């Protein structure tokens, strides 16, 4: 059984040392005893080597981008350049206090100002806030901005936000948090918004519409002009979930085709590391009429240099982060945009789209693909043939992929495709690596026919076999029992 760090703990060991106390005393000499803790927290007592061995051995149990293709749909698991890591760790970046005088932060502020401008150009939006620290927080910020706009116009009766049934789960959850009623609209047979149905749903109570474009089926929402006209006709606003922006760089500017507000996922499109789940960064761009509602502060410049601009505090939605957001993540995205340039960004999206279509074409004979058209940067295949003919589920297929050295695609999402396998290869994968991945998928399709049991058993070669999720809920074990 794999040990926890607490199993290595022996009283008296330590992983670090401290200078002697220059100021004599004990805690009791400066703080009243009623505030003092009764017993020490039982943190580990190990040497640095034991700590290193333990966590390095844990690291070996992970799948990661440098190990192999990571085709999680809608997550854009592209390669993360190492120069970003070297630069971000510079002591003049990591050792900066947020309340330092602005004169001592000019380097940082210049970077943020340029990033705001660059992101605005990429999306065609008027202005961008960098403050939200995740995609979901970007959504929250964007929907708060929509709310603030309606409030300013006295339209407080607008309490509904419409979104397609293919939306990410964060979309409805965000609207609930802001206090909006969520109205779901079914997708049509082309995997797009059902325009006829939308016409029936739109009334004066509609505050906005949330749309991912390309949508979670990997398809471009080509009726956006009609949708925009409809929503704007009742003074509603259109939010774009930018999770799939990797398909649009240099090809489409969302701010120029009808979207009013959108978030970016710097950890997806702009290749900041996903970090095992975060930290991310979810900047939000808006069209001109929504600029007054952006969070405070913005980064601005005048003749004296760059500064934190609180000028619109009266109309702003306020703040969503303690300080200014995830600076270290913004810095990486800034570096990426500078190193890739305008021509490179266009190539990023072109190659992401080519890679996805190439892979889809290779898989088409072997896996059912519901929407038969060219995809954007990702596509949704599914395991319905395998399920129906051989009793093998998408979960089985996903687990078998792990045996072959790959991460699985996003599975069972979007919810409107049964047994969904949502695949996003990204532009940083080579033709050879996509060929190899396709071969593995095809091999699995064969195994489904010949040996379905193997699939039910998978994975066989991973650090642990299939883990029992049900037991984890029933017998809740969320912390180690320290002896």
């Amino acid at each position, binding site marked *: 059984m794999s040990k926890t760090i607490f199993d290595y703990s022996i009283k008296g060991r330590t992983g670090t040392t401290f200078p002697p106390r220059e100021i004599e005393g004990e805690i009791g000499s400066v703080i009243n005893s009623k505030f003092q803790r009764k017993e020490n927290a039982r943190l580990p007592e190990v040497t640095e080597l034991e700590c290193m061995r333990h966590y390095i051995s844990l690291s070996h149990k992970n799948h990661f981008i440098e190990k192999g293709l990571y085709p999680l749909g809608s997550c854009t698991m592209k390669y993360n350049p190492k120069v970003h890591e070297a630069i971000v760790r510079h002591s003049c970046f990591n050792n900066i206090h947020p309340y330092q005088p602005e004169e001592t932060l000019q380097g940082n502020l210049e970077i943020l100002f340029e990033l705001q401008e660059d992101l605005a150009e990429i999306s065609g939006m008027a202005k961008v806030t960098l403050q939200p620290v995740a995609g979901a927080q970007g959504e929250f910020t964007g929907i708060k901005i929509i709310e603030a706009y309606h409030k300013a116009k006295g339209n407080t009766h607008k309490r509904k936000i419409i979104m397609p049934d293919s939306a990410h*789960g964060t979309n409805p959850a965000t609207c609930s948090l802001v206090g909006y009623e969520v109205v779901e609209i079914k997708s049509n047979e082309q995997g797009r918004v059902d325009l006829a149905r939308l016409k029936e749903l739109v009334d004066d109570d509609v505050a906005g519409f949330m749309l991912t474009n390309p949508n979670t089926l990997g398809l471009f929402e080509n009726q956006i002009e009609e949708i925009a006209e409809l929503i704007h006709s009742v003074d509603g606003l259109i939010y774009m979930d930018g999770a799939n922006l990797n398909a649009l760089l240099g090809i489409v500017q969302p701010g120029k085709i009808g979207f009013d507000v959108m978030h970016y996922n710097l950890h997806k499109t702009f290749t900041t590391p996903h970090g*095992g789940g975060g930290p991310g960064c979810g900047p939000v761009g808006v069209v001109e009429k929504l600029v007054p509602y952006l969070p405070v502060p913005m980064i601005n410049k005048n003749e004296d240099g760059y500064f934190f601009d609180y000028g619109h505090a009266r109309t702003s939605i306020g703040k969503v982060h303690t300080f200014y957001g995830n600076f270290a993540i913004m810095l990486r995205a800034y570096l990426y945009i500078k190193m890739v340039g305008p021509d490179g960004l266009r190539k990023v999206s072109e190659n992401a789209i*080519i890679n996805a279509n190439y892979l889809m074409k290779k898989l088409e004979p072997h896996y059912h693909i519901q929407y038969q058209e060219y995809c954007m940067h990702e596509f949704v295949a599914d395991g319905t043939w395998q399920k129906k003919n051989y009793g093998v589920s998408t979960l089985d297929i996903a687990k078998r992929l792990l045996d072959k050295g790959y991460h699985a695609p996003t599975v069972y999402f979007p919810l409107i495709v049964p047994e969904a396998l949502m695949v996003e290869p990204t532009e940083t994968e080579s033709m050879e690596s996509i060929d190899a991945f396709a071969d593995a998928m095809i091999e699995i399709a064969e195994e489904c026919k010949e040996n379905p049991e193997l699939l039910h058993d998978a994975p066989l070669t991973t650090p642990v076999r299939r883990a029992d999720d049900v037991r984890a809920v029933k017998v809740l074990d969320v912390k180690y029992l320290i002896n």
Partner: protein
Amino acid sequence: MPYIPTTQAQRAEMLAAIGVSSFEELISAIPEKMRLKQELNLKPAVSELEITRSIQSKTCNNLCTGTANSFMGAGVYDHFIPAAVDTIVSRPEFFTAYTPYQAEVSQGTLQYIYEFQTMICELTGMEIANASMYDGASAVAEAILMSVRKNKLMKALVPATLNPEFFKVVKIYTEGIGIELETIPMSDGVTDLAALESMMDEKVSCVVMQSPNFFGNLEDGFAIEKIVRNNPKSLFISAVNPVSLAVLNAPSEYNADIVVGEGQVLGNSMYMGGPLFGFFASKLDLARMMPGRIVGGTLDKEGKRAYVLTLQAREQHIRREKATSNICSNQSLCVLAATIYMTLIGKEGLVEVATQSALKAHYLADEICKLPGFSMAFPKQDFFNEFVVSTPIPAAKIINLMKHRAIYPGVDMGRFKEDFVLLMDSRSGSGMTKDSVDSRSGSGMTKDSMDSRSGSGMTDIENRLMIAVTEKKTKADLDALVSALAEVTHV
């Protein structure tokens, strides 16, 4: 073009395999007129060598805390971080992985989160902790939201001593679903217990305490808890500094229900305030109400120990508009840094960090108060490693005068002037007039009365400097600040 491996020849081959003659055919779904006709208006690409060079010139326009002698805190703190923390955090195995959706190839990430949850439970005395929130501010907000989910009451009492930046985030997160925020006045830099007692009623969902509070003062968790229990349904939320918990009461000792806080102090650099991470822990009966990811132990099909994301039925990808939160990620890499930090610093080490920080802070406070015109803003209160002093000239001026000496003497309280007014005004929500609220809570809520209520503490807010000390400061650093303060304020 860096990072794109496809050659021209391969591109042609791939397009042919797809069955199209040009890339444009692939994007035929995009109406022609929506397509960008020209290149994005961005600067041309630069090489790794060039970007490294140009960044060098930008870093020179920063004066970092490492070079300066800094005493700034107010939410983030400059503690020592062992080198091995970054060695592990920099491993691509951890930093290029994503949320552990496929448990069988994510045991590394899942196990360190499980160990982190255990360490947070140890520090706080709570029974369950999640995999982290965005920051301390959103953790407080989510704690209030969880409390409302639990007892269906719609009023949250928030102390005037709460970090005002936290307050702003709490406000934006809670106003949407109609939670009524009321501010508990402060008295001499800590929560006014009599006022709290008068504000407790059957509508109170939760009471928030921050200790050390924004001003560095320690709050009496035992006394506050007693008052909270006046409403048996109300929950007690404690926001704490996790380093202080090495020596200060575990919140379980005063029976807190939910414990949250900013985790940056545990092994994470300041990075101008982000990324940060919030920790979130509670009693076990709230487990199914929690926001965010939670890792649980289980068995694999061969009976071997394994870790998975658990209690997922709470989350947005399953519950959608009925989820406990819209959060999808956690600050996993920051949590990894914290886990390695707590491991290396260890049981005795964290006590040493906390003790040295506190001893040095108290020495510095004593020395500063010997200077003419300086005194403690809240002389009666206990504090941990941060305190507010009254200054003979405006704090902003002191900071300005010390810039060329590369000393950051602390945080000017004047910068929060308007925030404190906002904090004081918050209770007037939900249709109650300001007057009616004022009379109900038994003390005025205007800016003037805020000053009088807090005694001498925060009147004349421009002349208040908040000073934080960590174990990194040497006695020479402390003495250098004292002599610099003497010099710049000498008339």
